[in-house]
């Protein structure tokens, strides 16, 4: 049966290539790239043989720990990518859990990622050619490490597969998983730029990891070479215990999954009307309440906000690496600029459900105002906090009025502009229930241009407060800063009202056409 499942897995993989030539081309390119990386890793491991033992040990522990983490994390990102041998598909066959565990373990090991990891793990042997005992131990420890990788990946996947069926969790994960990806840039920069300075810290990190389930197996040959046989023995115990526990967990999850299918459970019924009871009982209030529910429940909305908390992180990173505080001044205005046009895709997110607004004869301006109201409830405090907190930390509160003027001006102007924009054209957005980061079909250049155009318009309309703000900051004038604040808020508010009015009138006259396009966008 093990052989059957293994051949099934490879057959499915190869059949995939039959579907299109481009898939083969992509696979060949991907394969070459992978082989290149693997060759580089092996070469590096060979080279480490001629470096001090400490380096080889550090590299082994860090690389190995990274591999384990990768094995656990990647299935989350690519969930549904390789479902060839998912338990839900195998459930209908009479397979005992133990046999299935062995079969899945072997197929996991002998898949492409498994083979790559295994080759790299075995190559650690080369690092220890000068230490015969370590060189003998290394392949065994490498295999043990790869076993931990596979077992950890499967155990976590099985344990969370039941959770994965719950929509709320799935929605949360699909957003959360992108945080490290967005942060990857600065992190890589940090590593590249600070490698020399944190070069001294790496062994310390490796030391901590070597005592954890992540790095224990990878640490053993190095410990032996560095003359710490006691530590090596203890770490072997840790690694074996880790493998055992993971296998037990996996076995248990598998047994449950085989008999009790993870039913798609509905979210727990909630009592009451939520925001509908708190917003005013007017059409505008109703739209605002509906928008509030969606901001909380629909990951597509939250997904567009995810970059906001990352702005301070980016700013901190920039100011550390450039050794200047000016990025910290820009956090508030940057958050405002990001939040300003989030409404531009609002009607597109509604999809054909927008028909409810049309068939109830809702006034277009009430539709616009309701959406702006909800966004402003958290966008305004966010901009104010993002402006004031960094300034307070670096003790430059005198710059607050100017920056607040710029930020709030951009935000309010953006509300107005996006109120018109989202009534004018549709954005290609993922449908409700899809991953917020899925790039939707037919994402045309014109729509992207529309978005950038509205952004540009926001900046052009905010030129007065932008110019005033810059002058106030350069001259260090608090008075000019206050003028900026007044101009920004007043001008922004006027533009917002005009935008809501204009956008509302557009909706009143072009609503049916907009709905027709929404229908077409969904292929209905």
């Amino acid at each position, binding site marked *: 049966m093990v052989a059957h499942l293994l051949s099934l897995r490879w057959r499915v993989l190869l059949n995939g290539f039959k579907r299109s030539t481009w898939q083969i081309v992509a696979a060949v390119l991907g394969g070459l790239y992978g082989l290149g990386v693997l060759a580089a890793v092996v070469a590096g491991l060979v080279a480490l043989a001629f470096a001090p033992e400490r380096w080889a040990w550090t590299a082994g522990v860090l690389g190995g720990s990274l591999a384990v983490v990768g094995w656990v994390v990647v299935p989350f990102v690519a969930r549904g990518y390789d479902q060839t041998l998912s338990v839900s598909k195998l459930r209908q066959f009479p397979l005992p859990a133990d046999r299935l565990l062995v079969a899945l373990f072997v197929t996991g090991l002998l898949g492409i990622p498994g083979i790559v990891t295994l080759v790299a793990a075995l190559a650690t042997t080369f690092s220890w050619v000068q230490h015969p005992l370590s060189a003998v131990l290394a392949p065994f420890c490498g295999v043990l490490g790869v076993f931990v990788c596979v077992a950890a990946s499967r155990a976590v996947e099985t344990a969370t597969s039941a959770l994965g069926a719950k929509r709320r969790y799935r929605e949360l994960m699909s957003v959360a998983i992108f945080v490290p990806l967005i942060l990857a840039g600065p992190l890589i920069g940090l590593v590249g730029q600070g490698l020399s300075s944190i070069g001294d810290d790496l062994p310390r990190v490796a030391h901590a990891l070597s005592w954890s389930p992540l790095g224990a197996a990878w640490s053993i040959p190095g410990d032996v070479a560095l003359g710490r046989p006691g530590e090596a023995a203890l770490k072997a115990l840790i690694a074996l215990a880790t493998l055992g526990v993971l296998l037990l967990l996996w076995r248990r999850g598998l047994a449950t999954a085989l008999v009790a299918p993870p039913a798609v459970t*509905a979210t727990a019924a*909630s009592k009451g009307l939520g925001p*509908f009871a708190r917003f005013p009982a007017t059409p505008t209030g109703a739209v605002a309440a509906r928008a509030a529910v969606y901001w909380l429940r629909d990951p597509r909305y939250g997904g567009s906000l995810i970059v906001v908390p990352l702005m301070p992180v980016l700013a901190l990173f920039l100011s550390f690496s450039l050794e200047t505080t000016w990025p910290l001044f820009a956090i508030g205005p940057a958050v405002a600029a990001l939040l300003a046009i989030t409404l531009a895709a609002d009607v597109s997110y509604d999809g054909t459900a927008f*028909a*409810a607004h049309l*068939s109830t004869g809702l006034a277009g301006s009430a539709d616009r105002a309701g959406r702006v109201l909800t966004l402003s409830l958290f966008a305004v405090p966010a901009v104010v906090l993002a402006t004031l907190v960094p300034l307070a930390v670096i003790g430059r509160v005198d710059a607050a009025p100017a920056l607040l003027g710029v930020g709030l001006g951009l935000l309010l102007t953006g509300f107005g502009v996006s109120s018109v924009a989202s009534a004018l054209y549709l954005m290609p957005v993922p449908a409700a229930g899809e991953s917020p980061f899925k790039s939707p079909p037919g994402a045309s250049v014109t729509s992207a241009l529309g978005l950038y155009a509205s952004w540009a318009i926001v900046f052009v309309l905010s030129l007065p407060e932008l110019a005033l703000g810059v002058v106030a900051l350069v001259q260090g004038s608090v008075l000019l800063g206050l003028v900026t604040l007044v101009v920004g808020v007043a001008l922004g508010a006027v533009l917002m009202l005009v935008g809501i009015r204009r956008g509302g009138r557009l909706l009143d006259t072009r609503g049916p056409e907009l*709905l027709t396009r929404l*229908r077409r966008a969904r292929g*209905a």
Partner: protein
Amino acid sequence: MSDVGMPRPEPTATPTASALQITGLRKAFGDKVAVDGIDLSVPSGSFFGLVGPNGAGKTTTLSMATGLLRPDAGRIEVLGVDVWSDPTHAKSLVGVLSDGISLFDRLTGEQLVTYHGLLNGMSRETTAQRVGDLLDLLDLRSAGGTLVVDYSAGMTKKVALACALVHAPRLLVLDEPFESVDPISAANIRDILHGYTQNGGTVIVSSHSMDLVQRMCDHVAVIASGRVLAAGTTDDVRAGSTLEDRFVELVGGRQHNEGPSWLRTS
């Protein structure tokens, strides 16, 4: 089945003979003419069935009648109010259940119906009372706190019907309201709709089910290829035969064959 709490249609100032009057309605999508000169008069207080084969133009016609799709030509009046020159007034008189349109399904059932009530400008108290009544009436009370996205297809239809009813419209336009609704719920909905017409409301339903339309509707129109083939009281249209036979006769296209031989193994 009592009709306690059923939102009764509010009386209009000027009673007209027709709840819905369509004249010379046309709509083309590119080269394809979907609606090709439809004239239709739906008498006030009638239970009107709109039947036709797939692609006949039923949904297109109903979308234009409810202000969701702009016609190329023609005139549509709801109780004497022109839908396309005074849309806000006309829409306040009409309740719509559209086919192939999604709902704001991240709301709970109760929130969704409340939303529609508030969008219609109703007060919080009236909305709350009617939402409660409708959820009871449509047997959705226990599912009121569940997200609509988690509803079954039949429950989704029912909650959409509640949304159409909540502002007590004078005219109900229901596109395929019985699709995937279980027989008991369907019977309940039929009772509700009958009670509604007896109180002076008008109901238009489109359906594929000839049996259902024949039993349920007192008036019927058969449309195909964007034209009205027959319209009038159900008895007049079916002319002594069953509606289904009459429909096939009018529309044509019935094939008489028994399928491939391997399907006839007995």
